[in-house]
């Protein structure tokens, strides 16, 4: 039992460090840095550009669709990559498994296609 809890102590230490680190770093920075604010320094940092409009704007909902589709292919790659690396050892069985996996994703792709997700004016 004690051993069981001892393992959690490591987790607890990680959590504590995780919380303490940003606090510590920011506090240290605050103590060390000189403080000379000007108006320009206090504006939002946008890669050197002048910020335009409000910072809280709604994104077009269409972007979410793209994001979702991106995730599908992203995940596909994540799975395909290790499979390709270990292809020699896994053999035919894994090939069939992968084909099933890819074909399921294709079904999702066809679904998205027919639902006109790829057309900007569909919504």
């Amino acid at each position, binding site marked *: *039992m004690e051993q*069981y809890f001892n393992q959690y102590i490591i987790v607890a230490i990680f959590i504590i460090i995780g919380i303490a680190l940003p606090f510590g770093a920011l506090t240290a920075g605050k103590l060390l840095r000189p403080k000379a604010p000007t108006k320009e320094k206090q504006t939002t940092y946008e890669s050197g550009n002048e910020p335009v409009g409000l910072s809280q704007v709604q994104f077009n909902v269409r972007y979410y669709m793209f994001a979702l589709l991106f995730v599908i292919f992203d995940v596909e790659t994540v799975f395909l990559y290790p499979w390709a690396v270990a292809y020699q050892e896994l053999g035919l069985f894994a090939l069939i498994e992968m084909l099933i996996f890819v074909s*399921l994703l294709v*079904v999702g792709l*066809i*679904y998205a296609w*027919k*639902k006109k997700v790829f057309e900007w004016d569909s919504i």
Partner: protein
Amino acid sequence: MDTRLFAADLLDMLPELTLFIAIIIISLLDLFWPKNASKKGIGVLTLIALIVSAGFLIYQRIHLDGVISLLNDSYLVYHYGILFKLIVLLGVSLIVMMSFGAIRDKDIPHIGEYYVLLMPAALGAMIMASSADIITLFIGLELLSISSYILVALRKHHTKSNEAAFKYIVLGSIASAFILYGMSFLYGMGGSTNLFQIGATLQSLESSFHPMIYVSFFLLLVGFGFKLAAAPFHTWAPEVYSAAPTPVVSFLAVISKAAMLIFMFMFLPVYFVPLDPVQNLTIYSDVVLTLHVVAAISMIVGNIVALMQKNVKRLLAFSSIANAGYFLVVLSTDRPGELVYYLVAYLLMTIGIFAVVTALENSAEHQDISIFSGLYFTAPVTAVMTVILLLSLAGIPLTMGFLGKFFILLGVIQVKTYWLAAIMIVSSVISFYYYFRIIRLMFMRSHSEHTTIKVPVTTMIVIAICVVATIFFAFFPQYMLSFIEWT
């Protein structure tokens, strides 16, 4: 234990595979469905897929010999599992049939998706009924849950429905998280994801681990209670029930509950952990006590709050909360035969009554309880059938509902939990009041609003099936009981 899967083993998974393939094919067919053709065709195909799957199940049941275990017990084909799957398929088939007359274009823009989504939901429930591994169980649960989140949200131009669906998703995810957290404790202590192994390991643990076992149970109970809609985790139910499409509501009320029951049915044996060998105490007895308390609260809250409801679907929501209480009672007595009998009774009467509600709310365009007014004068046959379903819900003799409750009570009295029996029986007397209120409306009030009520043929068939079965198995319970125990 063999962890490999062979092609021959796929035969044992045929009912699930049928549904899985049907989901893909039918969802693709839906995409290429002719624009102006009725989407009922999709529904018919869904129904066929469900029936084929049920056919395979019956075949499996007939040729079943002992327990078939695949993939290191993460997939089991066994007696009660098949019964549960059959119940799920029966329920979903009835719901699909009810939907033909109930789901309308103006309500639900994506009818094709509606029918297709019922299948993964059923598949999730079937996977749950068939696994003894916490990961597979959780996958089944999530397949069921995610499908039902979408089903609840299908009335997409209805503000209330969207709000309810959103709440359902958020709360449902929290419940899933609780379940997952509880499972993680079990895994941590048991060192395995297999429930049998967890059970074996837990028995030999030293007593300092016992608090953790309790923690895992209470975490599971929160998630379980939520999905079962047992008080005090029931608050989502009235809102979701009143806002979701009625066939989906009957799905939540019947199939989700059945799935959660099989879920708990698998988990409870894990808690047979001896506390004190001298006094024959186990953690299980505390688990049972907790279940009893939750059951008592559910029955009391469900039946009393239902008295004040004006919206039919809210009323039925509280009635289903009360029924969750009855289910918890029978679950705690560990009598699967009685559980299955009452589950079938509950399935028939709930789906039947929701089928009536779909027909009435579609012709009245609202859900006030007054939709029942004067039904006897406008549609006498439907009214009489509704009376039988309501009597079954109330637990009046000569219905399955009565015998089901009787069997449950026998189990409770046998273990001498008299207080629970008293609460159960008194709260069902309280429920007389609101069920008979509907009867009063049908027979003793004039028909003010609608002069003609059109009950679609398919809906009528569903109601008739439910009523006939409710009566038949009340007069001849032997057929069902011996089928349940048939080996």
